[in-house]
């Protein structure tokens, strides 16, 4: 609740007799205005400007500085950033403290890169930069900070991207460190943002692996669904969903692409890994996921796996497109059904959107060739409008019904029900 809200609303509370004038004054005193904080930003902005000017002076003369001085500057600023972070943390200013520690970690990476460059030294594997990831993961365990937890995950992506693009190698150590080190950190202290970023980071690295090893791109989904299965095992449902989100989005986009462009056998052929190996690996991950869902009592989310049905083994052409459409409809329907049961408004919206998208794809696939273009858009528009009207009406009635069925149950457990209708 913001101070502004309190200022504007509280006179009405006094007028209606909810609180007394004295209580209102105490509430306002409890939440002082924010102006003080804005003034506190000025020194920070000032020091950033001073720091930038120092940085540009150093950068402009970097090549002319003697070697020892360059090394001294790097190590000195590294030390200063960490010391500053520690100092601010001891004074209780956590945000600035964690920011400076993160800066120190960034300077560590910069020092490794610039020192190699200083000696024109060539590295043939990622070991030089791997130390950066290790330091980041260790630092994230020392502090309870979202920023410091996110940093090694992002650094891991940068190191892996550099390694695959410049050195032509995939660094299993980097992905392992991020998955196990940052992953365990997230498991212990779940955070939705960290979960999603972690998942994205791992998926990106898996994609780099697929590109580098010239594997069939469908192999991407085995590690991706492994990440999803780990989310199933997490005790906190919201944290698990955050980890699963990116993998699900990837699987959905793939299914959508298959429905839209899967007709030409030329594409579909590039997607088919050896049947037994691929299906075996995917089934193992599925078993892990189902066990997790059962343990955590989350079996209704099982239809997520519909998106992973390997339709690309079907012969390319219309059968493949139609089969994928059926899968997309089944998936959207499962999301809608689950949302209706739980009565969650966000899930309902998501299910509706998925349903509309599936309808659009189906309409586009099946009628583009047969209809006059203006008629195509007219019928498509009318179809979408009526569909959205119907779904919204259904949602509204279901949500109302859900509220009605929940209310008596809640009322029975409460001592003084106000409106058990």
């Amino acid at each position, binding site marked *: 609740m913001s101070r502004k809200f309190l200022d504007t609303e509280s006179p009405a509370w006094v007028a209606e007799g909810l609180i007394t004038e004295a209580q209102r004054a105490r509430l306002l005193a409890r939440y002082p205005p924010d102006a003080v904080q804005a003034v506190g930003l000025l020194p920070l902005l000032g020091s950033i400007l001073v720091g930038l000017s120092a940085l540009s002076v150093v950068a402009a003369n970097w090549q*002319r500085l003697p070697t020892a001085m360059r090394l001294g500057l790097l190590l000195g600023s590294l030390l200063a950033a960490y010391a500053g972070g520690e100092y601010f943390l001891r004074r209780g200013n956590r945000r600035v403290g964690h920011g400076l520690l993160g800066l120190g970690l960034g300077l560590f990476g910069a020092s490794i890169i610039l020192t190699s460059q200083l*000696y024109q030294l060539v590295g043939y594997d990622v070991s030089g930069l791997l130390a950066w990831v290790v330091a980041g993961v260790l630092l994230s365990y020392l502090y309870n900070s979202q920023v410091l937890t996110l940093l090694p995950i992002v650094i891991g992506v940068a190191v892996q991207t550099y390694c695959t693009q410049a050195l032509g190698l995939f660094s299993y150590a980097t992905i392992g460190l991020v998955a196990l080190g940052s992953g365990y950190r997230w498991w212990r202290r779940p955070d939705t943002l960290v979960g999603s970023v972690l998942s994205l980071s791992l998926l990106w690295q898996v994609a780099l692996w697929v590109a580098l090893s010239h594997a069939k791109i469908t192999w991407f989904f085995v590690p991706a669904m492994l990440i999803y299965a780990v989310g199933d095992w997490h005790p906190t449902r919201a944290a698990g969903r955050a980890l699963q989100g990116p993998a699900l989005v990837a699987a959905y986009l793939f299914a959508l692409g298959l429905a839209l462009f899967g007709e030409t056998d030329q594409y579909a052929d590039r997607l088919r890994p050896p049947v037994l190996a691929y299906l075996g690996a995917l089934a193992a991950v599925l078993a892990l996921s189902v066990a997790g869902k059962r343990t955590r009592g989350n079996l209704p989310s099982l239809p997520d796996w519909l998106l992973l049905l390997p339709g690309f083994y079907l012969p390319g052409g219309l059968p493949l497109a139609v089969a994928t459409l059926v899968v997309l409809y089944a998936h959207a329907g499962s999301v809608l059904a689950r949302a209706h049961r739980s009565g969650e408004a966000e899930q309902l919206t998501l299910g509706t959107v998925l349903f509309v998208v599936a309808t659009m794809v189906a309409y586009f696939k099946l009628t583009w060739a047969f209809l006059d273009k203006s008629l195509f858009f007219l019928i498509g528009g009318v179809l979408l409008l009526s569909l959205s009207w119907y779904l919204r009406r259904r949602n509204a009635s279901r949500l109302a019904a859900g509220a009605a069925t929940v209310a008596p149950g809640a009322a029975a457990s409460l001592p003084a029900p106000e409106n058990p209708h």
Partner: protein
Amino acid sequence: MLTRTSPSHRLLLRLLVAAQLLYVLGVAGAGYATTAYGQHIWLGTQPVDLHGLQYESFVRLRYTAATAPLTAWHGAAAPQPRQAVYVLLAPGSDSLAAVAGVYDKALTPSPGQAVLRGWVTEVYNHTLGLRYNLERYYVPGDSPLRLGKTSPAVRVRVSIAPWGQARIERVELLKPPIGAR
């Protein structure tokens, strides 16, 4: 996981920072040691374009050893772009090193020869394009390259450490463009 800073916590941070400082010093030490204990070879380049030096602090070196005939390839399978390779270099008549063979596995060079690691950039019909990650040369402030002679021919002194790391030690102008050979 600790939320407030405690003495043991501070100690851990200090150890971590000390390890980072030592690591950076170690990288610098590897740079020194590569020169001190490494094998030294001279590589020739194409004329160096100095125009970029007005905007950037490095120049691109195009080594003559960056292309090798496909007959120099010794490997189990045909070379692939981005593949890591070991390039056997032997000094030619002008004391500049020339490619004697490109291998897909590590090998021990005979005396007088050196092995430099690199990557395949392109596979052409009769030649291989190679990259050594030594192509970017950060020009020091006192280098003769800074004096702005247009497209000079240079030779590059490269040190190769016993553990395989390589670095550019220095870059020299070939004073009279071709005659000095």
